[in-house]
């Protein structure tokens, strides 16, 4: 089974949330589930709470919360929303579902 180029490297993800808003919580919960299922042991997740410091949102030009930023592998990609649509999220992140054992 051939993996695409993106799958061969680790993932560096950054999730922007706004405190305990429902969508933020849902996004974090959905993302953890996907990461543990498809990227176990080869991802790093940073959770950035813009409520604590809104200026942090400027780094990745965030306009809506929640937003997931795929920093590595490049190119940088942003996915906005609660990440409830797993297929769409996996596609946008470039994760080959068939690679999962």
């Amino acid at each position, binding site marked *: 089974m051939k993996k695409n180029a993106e799958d061969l490297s680790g993932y560096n993800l950054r999730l922007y*949330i*706004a405190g*305990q*808003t*429902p*969508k*933020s*919580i*849902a996004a*974090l*919960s*959905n*993302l*953890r*589930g996907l990461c*543990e299922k498809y990227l176990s042991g080869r991802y790093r997740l940073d*959770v950035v*709470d*813009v*409520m604590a410091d*809104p*200026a942090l*949102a*400027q780094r990745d030009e*965030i*306009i*809506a*919360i*929640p*937003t997931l930023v795929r920093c590595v592998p490049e*190119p940088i*990609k*942003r*996915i*906005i*929303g*609660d990440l*409830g649509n797993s297929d769409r999220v996996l596609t946008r992140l470039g994760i080959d579902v068939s690679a999962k054992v």
Partner: protein
Amino acid sequence: MKGIAKKIQASEVETLRLRLTEAEEALQAIAKGSVDALVVGGPRGPVVSTLAGAQEPYRLVVERMHEGALTLGEDRRILYSNRHFAHLLGYPVAHLVGKPVANFVAPEDAARLADLLDHGAKQPASRELKFRRRDGSATPALVGVGSLTLDQTPALLLIITDLTAQKHSEELAAAERFARSILEQATEAVVVCNADGRITKASFAAERLLDKPLEGKLLADAVPMEVELPAEAHHSGVRMSSREVLELVLERHSLRGAEAQICLPRLHEKHFLLSAGPLSDEPGGCIGCIFTLTEITDRKRAETQQTMLVAELNHRVKNILAIVQSVAWQTLSANHSPSEFKRAFDGRLRALSLAHDILTQGRWGHVDFEQLVERSLAPYHGGDHGMRAQWSGSRLSLPPNMVVPLSMVLHELSTNAAKYGAFSVEHGRVNIAWRSDGVNVLFTWTETNGPPVKGEIKAGFGSKLISRVVSYDLLGTADLDFDREGFRCALTFPVPKLRTDALRPLSAAPSPVH
């Protein structure tokens, strides 16, 4: 060059296309309600604007309530945690969301949690569980579980009430009950004081001893003591008051086995052993003292009596040795052949031994004179010897110091009768009588039917010993009459004084025969 420019241009176009796509997705997400906050520019930089809905007030209530609140998905991962629960475990909220709730329960409670969640999915249920905090410690909590539906998906709602304070209170109450029961059941007087010297707790035994309630009173007033510090203490031999002992113990010195007396009229004859030690709180500060008083009055009395007995025994041993030495010397001076000396000395030692047997049997108390007479004459009277002596007299109770001298006198009289007088022939008889005129005891020894006395009779050593003993030890007189009809002896000595010191049966010892 043109090729490179085209590539850069293509890359920029791609980036712009990507950004456009993201912008379109952002708009769609906002339109669909997939986002609930926007980052907008403000005069002082970016500002987060939340898109609060109708649920916002409820969310705020859950966020600010003093119980932990969790929602779990069907896979029992945490979908939502309020800040209180995260704070309870010592994690940021983001660390909890998406993880199995079982990760945060003490391992020994994992099965109980699973069981609780199974029940809670069917009908509301609650149970006490221990959660594992970030620092590794366990937090007891009451967990209530109920089911709910989130976006048409079944979920569980958990309300977690921290029981740490309640458990701590229960432990404190249990410790208090335990301490109280110890105080109630202690047979010793236990008194607990605070640093001001005021009694905060006292055992039943302590209140019974002092015959009043003690709690709330100053130790120095309620239990005034005079304490002698034990030999091993820093200030050994020093006598201290209750207040001084308190100050000593508050400086973190402990006392073990200090003898104490309570300076109250009702208790001044009682003796106690005092143990005292500092009472420390958790940080190690001295917050008071614990005093334990054990009554040792009986032990002290026994120790005093034992000391007295040892001294008395020592005195008596010396006394008896002096008597034996005196008897030996006098016997030796009156008997020139070794066989005569042996016979005479053995007889006198037996008389001495008999006197001590009688004294020991009577625990060195008073001895009945008639008993002494009977036992002294036993070798010559009764049994195979027949009834060769008779005696009568008023009841005469002899103090211990008169027993040895009278025993010696009776021995000399009996020996003399056996050698030369009434006991030397079959029909010889001895009549013994005594009476008291209130001042003196009049004792007579009269021999009849003895062998005829021939020629001049010379007083022998036995006669001298009798006279000497009666004179020196009984403070009386002896009149010996060697009549041809039979030997007669009349003794007069003061009536023994009735002893009143019943507590000191061994204090009066026989004086040596000189």
